[in-house]
């Protein structure tokens, strides 16, 4: 019995055939059911559980004494949380903007039919293959005033040179931006390059015949065509930014003080280090809402497109 044969179902077909049809109809559902169930429980189920916990006064272990919104009001009266989410805005904005700019620029330069493109592309993409732990450790050394760039500049004679952002309370968050941009811009470049290669050559030819210069062609024609690709990059980078954890832990450990804390490190610290699961869950929910605020416009635009198409 072959499942694939779609013999006319209505004209007195033996019941075997219809069984095959039925099987064919339910098979994808059966195959997908376990992963669906796992996703439902371990992603959405746990989101709901975190939501429930954020309304309880859970300390060391989860409990179900509901205390309303008091965890949220506590959260927003905490200086450390203010620092954490302010940092997320600074870090997220700079990281996304700079990584996209650098990535696009690299892609455009690589797109000029240069020699050894394959090698260069690999070189730029390689940082993305490194674990954030490695990136963090390397940049921790590079930025350390005692052994890194500052020491190097002093050693070659620039004794007034100062670059101590890593240990400066007001600048530490920017060192995380530097390391994160270094990590991700090669990835943006790869996506952009694919996009650039997808642009129809005849449009460019036509513009050249009309006398447009290359910069104008990029600005007025190619980059606008690539709008959806920019959007994909934006979505990918923004979720990377919101869930950033390992880079902060390795590079600054949230310090000096807690000046470079991000919501993810805050959540871990409170839920697991300080036995305040309630407040930790509340901070996780706020972080989730932040991401939903970005995701919904994205889903909206995606789904609308399908309707029209």
């Amino acid at each position, binding site marked *: 019995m072959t499942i694939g044969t779609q013999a006319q179902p209505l004209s007195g077909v033996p019941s075997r055939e219809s069984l095959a049809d039925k099987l064919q109809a339910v098979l994808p559902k059966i195959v997908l059911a376990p992963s669906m169930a796992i996703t439902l429980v371990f992603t959405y189920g746990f989101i709901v559980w975190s939501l429930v916990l954020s309304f309880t006064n859970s*300390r*060391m*272990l989860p409990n179900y004494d509901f205390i309303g919104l008091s965890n949220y009001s*506590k959260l927003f*009266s*905490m*200086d*450390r949380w203010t620092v954490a989410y302010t940092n997320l805005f600074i870090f997220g904005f700079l990281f996304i903007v700079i990584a996209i700019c650098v990535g696009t620029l690299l892609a455009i330069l690589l797109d000029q039919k240069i020699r050894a493109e394959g090698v260069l592309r690999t070189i730029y993409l390689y940082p993305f293959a490194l674990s954030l732990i490695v990136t963090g450790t390397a940049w921790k050394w590079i930025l*350390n*005033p*005692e052994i890194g760039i500052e020491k190097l500049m002093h050693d070659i004679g620039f004794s007034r040179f100062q670059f*101590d952002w*890593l*240990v400066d*309370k007001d600048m530490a968050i920017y060192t995380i931006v530097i390391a994160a941009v270094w990590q991700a811009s090669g990835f943006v470049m790869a996506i952009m390059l694919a996009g650039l290669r997808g642009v129809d050559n005849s449009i460019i030819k036509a513009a050249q015949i009309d006398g447009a210069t290359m910069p104008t062609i990029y600005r007025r024609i190619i980059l606008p065509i690539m709008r959806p690709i920019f959007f994909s990059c934006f979505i990918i980078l923004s979720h990377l930014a919101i869930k950033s954890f390992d880079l902060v832990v390795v590079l*600054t*450990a949230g*310090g*000096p*003080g*807690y*000046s470079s804390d991000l919501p993810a490190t805050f959540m871990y*610290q*409170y839920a*697991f*280090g*300080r*036995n*305040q699961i309630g407040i930790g869950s509340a901070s996780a929910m706020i972080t989730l809402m932040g991401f939903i605020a970005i995701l919904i416009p994205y889903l909206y635009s995606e789904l609308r497109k399908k309707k029209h198409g």
Partner: protein
Amino acid sequence: MTGLNKTLTAATFAALISGQAHAGNVEVLHYWTSGGEAAALAILQKMMKDEGHSWTDFAVAGGGGETAMTVLKSRAISGNPPSASMIAGPEIAQWGDLGVLAKLDEVATSEGWDALLPKAVADIHKYQGSYVAAPVNVHRINWMWMNKSILDQVNGGQVPQSWDEFFAFMDKAKQAGFIAFAHGGQDWQDATVFEQVALGVGGDDWYRQAFVELDKQALSSDTMTQAFATFKKLKSYMDPGMPGRDWNLTTAMVIDGKAAVQIMGDWAKGEFAAAGKQPGKDYVCATVPGTQNAFNFNVDAFMMFAQKSKEAQAAQQDLSRLLVSKEFQEEFNLKKGSIPVRPDVSLARYDSCAKQSMSDFQASAKSGSLVPSFAHAMAMEPAVSGAVYDVVTNFFNDNDMTADAATSRLVSAIELAQ
């Protein structure tokens, strides 16, 4: 099946389904994975084997024990806790509230723990009047570690006794071109130094009111403001590479003669010993100014979880007895750098710092000036000590915050965390 084979099978079986209570087996969760720590623990394993019990090692790496505690919580929730877990301080009481701990009263009575242990130490390891954890060592935190040659060179070998003398010493060391104060800018190190400054400035009674009883009046007092101000003053004697530096690298600066002094618990002694340095000859250990009569302690303990089978219970009681026994305490603390919790252990093989630590510990226990360390989880539950960490480290790193502002922020942060 031969007897040997049987034992082997039983041991393998026990190892395979660890946690499930089996004949005379203890499963011990700990995070002592560094060389010295592992060596100290090996002594205990051998002693348990000599008693005829088997040992399942449940080591979870990660110095601060955060990971280990997370694993422990998940095991306890699923109803399958290990026999014993390393833990310190008031968190024991939080576990007691969950009703999962085993009582050690029988062992405690027959071994006379109440008579051996100072009340301040014993109380931490009891839940509702019963022992639920066995203490293994005492670390003293109010130590300063000085490089002897720098001390001789700039201060004529004089150990500073008051904060005035201390800052005079700092000035001289700084002028002589040394890093005067060695510090690692991590939140727990900030808290450790602040705690000693507070104890030195305010004395043990005030310290106890403020950081153990969390008395609002003591917390918001002028003494607190003064403690914050003194703590901030230390910052001008530190080097710019301080933020984020690990404590052992900081100790190495004192060992190498780059820095004059470090305030740190007696685990720092291990670093000096590993570098082949002698107390009194290469380095000097002395109490932090103003804390000469007080003893700021941190006690490591093993907390016991209720076990189902008779054999596991018996093994657990034996483990508890061994942990506090004279032989184990002597050997273990020699390796760990700390001092024994019981007074009747021979100190012949210990160094002069440990001997001083021991006699101060006994004296403080008598006079009631033993104070638990909040920087090392002995005085407050984690939520509160975390809040204090935040205020201390933020104040220390913020050049514009005044000591007054820090005091009022400390009060509100503690209220919020309770």
